């Protein structure tokens, strides 16, 4: 009984194991913990590693529409195509291109980019000159540690489009001007 009482008295300060939380916006973590770059979890400062882009998901140079990384051919309709990517520190944009099938009379594009909220937020922009910018997604991302932006619109058949993944602020005042993301592209027949 006395032990219980002592335990009750002692348990008034938060006890948070490392890795218990994902990093919040602007790499927010509990006091005494730091955002771990590789997996975006909160760990003790001594165990934290810096953020780094996985070289296998980089397609540089891809900083302008002319250097856009070409996505595989899409069907009509297509299965969702997921492409992993990463905006490194100071990278102005990642451009990708895709082509709508020529045999689709009308094609509806469903684009989304999902990224951890811990680092810089991202935006989508379709084509240059601008056709569309992103908006909120109808479905929230599966993990509450992620954010997502979406574009949904009708596209003409047999056309090539360029899509930019851009930095969109919230970059820890420049200290987290980078992020990794998953781009999902799907063409559907309306």
């Amino acid at each position: 009984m006395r032990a219980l009482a002592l335990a009750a008295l002692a348990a008034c300060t938060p006890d948070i194991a490392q890795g218990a939380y994902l990093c919040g916006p602007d790499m927010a973590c509990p006091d005494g913990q730091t955002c771990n770059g590789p997996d975006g979890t909160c760990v003790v400062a001594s165990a934290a590693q810096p953020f780094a882009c996985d070289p296998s998901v980089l397609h540089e140079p891809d900083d302008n529409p002319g250097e856009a990384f070409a996505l595989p051919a899409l069907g009509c309709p297509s299965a969702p195509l997921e492409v992993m990517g990463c905006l490194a520190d100071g990278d102005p944009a990642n451009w990708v291109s895709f082509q709508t099938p020529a045999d689709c009379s009308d094609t509806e594009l469903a684009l989304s980019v999902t990224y951890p909220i811990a680092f810089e937020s991202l935006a989508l922009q379709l084509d240059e000159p601008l056709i569309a910018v992103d908006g909120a997604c109808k479905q929230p991302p599966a993990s509450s540690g992620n954010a997502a932006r979406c574009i949904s619109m009708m596209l003409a058949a047999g056309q090539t489009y360029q899509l930019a993944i851009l930095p969109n602020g919230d970059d820890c005042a420049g200290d987290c001007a980078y992020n990794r993301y998953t781009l999902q592209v799907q063409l559907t027949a309306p």
Partner: protein
Amino acid sequence: MRPVPIAIVVALASRAFAGGADFQPPPANDGGKDIVITTEGERSTRNIAVLASIAGAGALLGGVGLYFHLDARSAADQVSADQPTGQPWTPADQTAYDRAHSSSVKAAVFYSLGGAALIGAVVGLIVTAPSSETTVIHPHRGTATFAPAPGGAVVGGVWSF
């Protein structure tokens, strides 16, 4: 032979038998047995009121400390985790974390103040305890008195102290 009625009179002029007095059997003494009278002191109403006020304040401060303690524990429970939660650390979590820390500090302060007040009350209780008063009477050897009375006699004793 007819028995002679005898009256024994012992008179003691003393406050020994006032309320609260402790009368002890007198020890042996050359001049007679000592009479020891112990009178317990009484705590004044003001003294009791002051000590009760200090103790009450201590209990009140302890109660405030308990409030902050429970608040700190509630906030700490909101964010404490020993397993991966899959949740990001949000401003709301930080607010709860800060509240836990702040209330914990306040609880410690109020517990300390309350404890100090209670200890002060106990110390005051001891320090201001009224002393008992002991009076020792060394009676001189008594003088027997004998006076004839109608139908008998009166036998008594006279002591001085």
